[in-house]
């Protein structure tokens, strides 16, 4: 991991506060969704709790809406940081009409937001990585100056799909950043069973591109690493692997029960290093966040989340007819 000097100084207080706000918003939304699940009101949730700092730090290193993002399911905080709204998220969670990711066709947390250049992905892990390299190839072909950020879990880097995608980007020096959110687990399977290297970033050496590992619990640290990778990409320097070490503080998803494969002690130790608390404490130490401001942030988040839940609860389900299209591009309504 990179030496972590005091990086907070690089960023303006407003930026630090914005980061913190997004982390809080994501966390409250995420927790509320777990509650809905426990109440039997929704069928499924997959959580970004413990990954927020990395995701917000990364998203804020992009030109939002101009750069391209090819995310994976665990990226709720990243999506919010890019401009996706809690209401939109809740529509998806509840499978309601007009849910912008897929018109309620896909499971929740399968992102796709055209207006933000956030590309649709499937559940099949690692399939998104070649798309990211392809978008980057097109950007290079067209001479545009956009950059692509794609994210993935550490386990999924065992897929040949990821290898081939990174290989293309390295050969053609494409403007893409391969962000890895390493939480040491792929459902129940630990990193040692996924790879024989210490860090995912070590794979970079075998593919011919730079790779770094950074503390993913610290948003400004991630922000700096991604900013560097993005500016290398934008200036023709080619792709980078940026591995962020994060904590999966929940079971894999609402379908999982992690008691069979990790101890409660291990989990408690992770929770003791909650990125949200770390960030809050740092900002307070720096004098950037006051007690009042903190209270306000929390209240605002709570309010926005409740509004989203209400909004989505009242929203109608899709018409049944929507299920039948668009199979082909010519079936699109606005065609």
């Amino acid at each position: 991991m990179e030496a972590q000097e005091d990086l907070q100084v690089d960023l303006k207080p407003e930026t630090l506060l914005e980061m913190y706000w997004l982390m809080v918003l994501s966390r409250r939304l995420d927790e509320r969704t777990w509650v809905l699940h426990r109440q039997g009101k929704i069928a499924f949730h997959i959580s970004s709790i413990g990954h927020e700092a990395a995701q917000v730090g990364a998203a804020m290193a992009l030109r939002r809406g101009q750069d391209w993002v090819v995310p994976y399911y665990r990226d709720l905080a990243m999506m919010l940081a890019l401009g996706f709204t809690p209401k939109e998220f809740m529509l998806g969670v509840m499978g309601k009409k007009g849910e912008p990711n897929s018109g309620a066709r896909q499971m929740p947390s399968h992102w796709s937001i055209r207006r933000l250049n956030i590309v649709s992905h499937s559940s099949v892990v690692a399939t998104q990585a070649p798309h990211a390299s392809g978008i980057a190839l097109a950007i290079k072909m067209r001479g545009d100056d956009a950059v692509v950020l794609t994210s993935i879990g550490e386990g999924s880097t065992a897929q040949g799909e990821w290898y081939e995608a990174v290989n293309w980007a390295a050969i053609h020096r494409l403007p893409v950043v391969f962000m890895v959110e390493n939480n040491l687990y792929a459902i129940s399977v630990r990193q040692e069973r996924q790879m024989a290297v210490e860090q995912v970033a070590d794979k970079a050496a075998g593919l011919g591109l730079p790779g770094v590992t950074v503390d993913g619990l610290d948003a400004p640290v991630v922000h700096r690493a991604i900013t560097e990778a993005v500016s290398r990409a934008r200036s023709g320097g080619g792709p980078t692997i940026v591995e962020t070490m994060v904590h999966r503080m929940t079971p894999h998803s609402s379908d999982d029960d992690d008691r069979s494969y990790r101890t409660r002690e291990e989990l408690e130790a992770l929770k003791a290093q909650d990125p949200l608390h770390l960030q809050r404490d740092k900002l307070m130490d720096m004098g950037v966040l006051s007690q009042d401001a903190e209270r306000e942030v929390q209240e605002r988040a709570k309010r926005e989340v409740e509004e989203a839940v209400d909004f989505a609860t009242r929203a109608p389900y899709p018409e049944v007819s929507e299920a039948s299209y668009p199979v082909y591009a010519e079936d699109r309504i606005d065609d």
Partner: protein
Amino acid sequence: MTEMTLIEGLRQAMDEELERDERVFIVGQDVGPRGGVFRATQGLYEKYGEDRVVDSPLAELSIIGIGIGTALYGMRPICEIQFADFIYPAFNQIVSEAARMCYRSGGEWIAPMVIRVPYGGGIGGGLYHSQSIEAFFAHVPGLKVVVPSTPYDAKGLLKSAVRDPNPVIFLEPKKGYRLIRGEVPEDEEVLVPIGPGRISREGTDLTLFAYGMMHHYAMEAAERVAQEGIDVEVVDLRTLKPVDRETVLASVAKTGKALIVHEDNLTGGYGAEIAAILAEEAFADLDAPVRRLAGPDVPAMPFSHPLQDWFMLDADKIADAIRELAAY
């Protein structure tokens, strides 16, 4: 006899085969301490250890490719693909390699292995946790494709698959894992041969061909219309490749009408092959057009409940199709 669920039948089959033959082992994602995401392998890691119940990397083609390698050396791998929807990365290893190994080496090398695959929808899984994949594999010579619909068959067919000298795609109707219950003898070995279909309900008015979860609904629908005086013969195909042509043809020779039901998309689905067999060989027997009732031709099952219900077949939809065909 004990009553058990489908998944219990599967788990018992694996347990018994691991016990019986030390060449048998399990490999797949989360099959170890987690016991599988559906708990099919629960307790087996604890009982047989990490050399016999192996957590693979998150890389399907390697699960199959590694499995093939071990089979070439004489092992009997049971490879688990976590969801049918995730089998495509391994398509090359299955179709190019496992299926063609025996033929291409003139029988010198074989790849006996079971590829266990939870499949099918109706569980809120959306596009990528609901798919049916049988049509792809039932087209490939060299593969066997098996789908149980009862705990008895689940246990008996899985044990046969483990002992089969060929690669067997073993499709498990995951919606039925805990929903479908049935009697399984405890004191004798349960082995169901791969190949024969099963007439699960005798009838005279029309034949309903189904498998997996759809067989479960088909039986429900057949009972329902029986009260209306329609006497349906239900055939549980069980083995899709090689299919039991005799049972298929004999039943239609008796009833004169055929309804084929599957969840997978209609066009080019498995029902096409049954319809084609009938169009070729039951011409003189058919009193009505063959009817396929299948998933609609959209890319996959949508998530939102009303949309999923639109896609998914059930006893109601099947009963309607029966009534329509019976009235022809």
